[in-house]
């Protein structure tokens, strides 16, 4: 043994296969691809079989409805991959809505009010992040607390009143469509943001750190990942996007009220999980979450048009969510058994 060198010469670049599976295999045998196929199938079925689904106005409303969810789904993906959860997003949404309303009512220029609402979101996110990272509290408990706290602030600021006076230019542009098409303008900034957050998660050193933190805090620390800063950033991002979603929603309906967005957090988390992100952290993608949110929205819209009662819609989307988690959990299980048998045999 002593005659063979321990190390090879440096600089060799073709000693290993880079990927165990081929390109198509990697692209197609994955959760996101399954969600995409289901989405297309549901879309085509609804288009053909449900009266009214094919109308442009349906698409416009569908996209306007899903826009705030999409906004919140993007950073939530990062939060969940980092091994945490943010249940307070809908309350930040409501708080931002009320802050916007109160400031506009007080005569503050709307641009400044929008900016302030966004800032409030960042601060709310940092509060969550501080409690989780610096004080080391579990995010599930922290954000259940801030869910109540931020909602309480929102309702407290405005009481049961509502602010409905917004500059008409802003409210109409919130629902306007691109030229003569059925696609709302808001889709453009959301697509840009989705790409930006996708790049951040999948292509930057920071994003790699998010995955590492989610899989193993300890290994991440020993590799020089700034675990606390990473989590602080994802919580701040979550707060910011939730606030922007609240601003968009408020302008679209021209209505700021303390109860805006109540209960949205569960839909957001459902979309992320449906998109293949592991609730235990460390696994998932931005594309999956976007597809998950779109699938839930298309399904709900189609079922509504098919005159399915609202509670039945909830049952169906809930069942699909549970099924998708079961399938996600089952795939690695069977894959493992398969390889083990192969190795044994």
């Amino acid at each position, binding site marked *: 043994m002593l005659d063979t060198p321990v190390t*090879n010469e440096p600089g060799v670049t073709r000693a290993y296969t*880079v990927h165990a599976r081929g390109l198509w295999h990697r692209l197609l045998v994955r959760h996101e691809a399954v969600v995409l196929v289901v989405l297309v199938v549901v879309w085509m079925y609804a288009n053909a079989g449900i009266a009214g689904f094919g109308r442009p106005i349906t698409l416009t409303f569908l996209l306007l409805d899903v826009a705030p969810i999409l906004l919140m789904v993007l950073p939530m993906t990062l939060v969940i991959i980092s091994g945490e959860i943010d249940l307070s997003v809908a309350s930040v949404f409501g708080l931002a809505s009320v802050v916007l309303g109160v400031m506009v009512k007080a005569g503050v220029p709307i641009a400044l009010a929008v900016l302030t609402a966004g800032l409030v979101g960042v601060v709310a996110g940092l509060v969550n992040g501080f409690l989780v990272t610096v004080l080391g509290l579990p995010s599930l408990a922290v954000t259940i607390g801030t869910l109540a706290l931020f909602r309480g602030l929102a309702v407290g600021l405005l009481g049961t009143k509502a602010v409905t006076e917004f500059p008409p230019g802003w409210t109409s542009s919130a629902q306007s469509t691109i030229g003569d098409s059925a696609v709302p303008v808001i889709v453009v900034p959301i697509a840009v943001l989705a790409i930006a957050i996708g790049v951040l998660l999948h292509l930057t*050193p920071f994003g*790699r750190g998010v995955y*590492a933190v989610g899989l*193993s805090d300890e290994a991440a620390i*020993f590799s020089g990942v700034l675990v606390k800063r990473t989590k602080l950033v994802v919580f701040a991002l979550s707060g910011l996007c939730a606030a922007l979603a609240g601003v968009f929603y408020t302008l679209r309906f021209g209505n700021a009220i303390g109860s805006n967005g109540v209960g949205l957090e569960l839909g957001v988390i459902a979309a992320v999980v449906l998109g293949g992100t592991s609730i235990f952290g460390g696994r998932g993608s931005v594309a999956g979450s976007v597809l998950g949110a779109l699938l839930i929205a298309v399904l709900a819209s189609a079922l509504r048009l098919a005159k399915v009662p609202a509670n039945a819609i909830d049952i169906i989307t809930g069942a699909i969510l549970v099924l998708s988690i079961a399938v996600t959990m089952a795939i690695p299980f069977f894959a493992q058994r398969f390889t083990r048998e192969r190795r044994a045999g």
Partner: protein
Amino acid sequence: MAEAVAPIPVLSVRNVAKSFGAAIALRKGCLDSYGGSIHALVGENGAGKSTLVKVIAGVHHRDGGEFLLSGRPVDFRNTAEAKAAGVAVIYQEPTLFPDLSVTENIFMGRQPVLGLGRIDRRRMRSEAADLLERLGVRLNPDRVARGLSIADQQVIEIAKAISLDAKVLVMDEPTAALSGVEVDRLFTITRALRDEGRAIIFISHRFEEIYSLCDTLTVMRDGEYVSAHAIGDVTVDEVVRRMVGRSVTDLFPKEAAPVGDVRLRVEGLTSSGKFHDINFVVRSGEIVCLAGLVGSGRTEIVRAVFGVDGYDRGTVTVDGHTLPMKNPAAAIAAGIALVPEDRRKQGLVMDFSVRSNMSLAVRDRLSVLGILPALKETRLAMSWAHRLQVKTSSLDSPVATLSGGNQQKVVLGKWLATEPRVLIIDEPTRGIDVGTKSEVHRLMSELAGHGVAILMISSELPEVIGMADRVLVMKEGHMTAELSRADANPETVMYAATHSVEKSA
């Protein structure tokens, strides 16, 4: 001894073997333990003591050999069977239910019941009180276990064992975390149990304790039984020689490398309760070894140096540049790399691919305009995997699927990719097969030859003696000796690691 020794040992294991995959933990374990007698089991870390204990306790199932209890062959498949047969183990750190009372902990899983399956609390409590009284300890049976000292927790475990009427009591380094008074109390209890006729197996690294408490002893080395003695027949020096005795000089050759400037300097490093006033330097081209028993503070020191943990006083400098506290990223930037003790939890992200693990510590350096380019990452992983001869089917295989030795190579590659000036390796060859072991040693020697300053922690004396230019010996948080390569031999290192204060500075 209080009673006549029974002719048949209560517990007798003969030629017991156990391996985990390719790693052989126990080749030939032999042990006889008689009723009314305390038997010591000694050996270096990794000699196979713990594995033998786990076989006896039913945690592991032996691969071969005989196991007799009071002369009858037994075959435990789990710990419950061992307990039922009267074998109890007291571990160094007991695991109690912190929110349950002392009484409930003693009777966990076998509470006395009344009709309808209701727990007979009154009987349980009075029995617990009796047990504690018999052991002569003042402990309120109603208080919760949380907050009890380790010594008291051990007493609860012992009470549990007695209530089960254990015939064999194995104590696995019970004194490691105890103070002097607590040790005395434990010894009083242990002697009382011996006088009741139980067989006791006692594991400790402290010879003072073994000589004051035990009647007989067995020495183990490299997973094998070496010899058994009555305690009066053998001296400490003789036992140490038997524990470490083998020619090690040519097993791990560290080639001579030119020793250059000071790379790592640690001054006055103190963290209360962990280590105290630690001073040392590591120069380029040098391999310095931190030796000492497990728990002597070695790992804690390198964690503090690397910035994973904070410290109370002192400074760490690399090439004259003082490192901030608690900042591994700064330590990495300054040129330190740490191959940690627990590679599965600390060294690697087990679900990450070989490639992602290799690039994790250099991902910022690889980036172009904030983007981590896949091509550069692949090239880096390819080059290091090839240089270290990592055996993997592809670069995107999760490291969890690799063998222990190959995982360790990935950890090494990950850190060598940072081009470290100071490489800290904690237990470089733990759990690695012999072949890879010598590869790792030769790699370390090669790195030192390239001017890297290496600080190594090792519990394996042959490795320490074979690799180190200098040996720093730790005992209970203090540095007790600094030995040059010429002065370091198993006896001097073991002596400094087990005997109290004697600074050779």
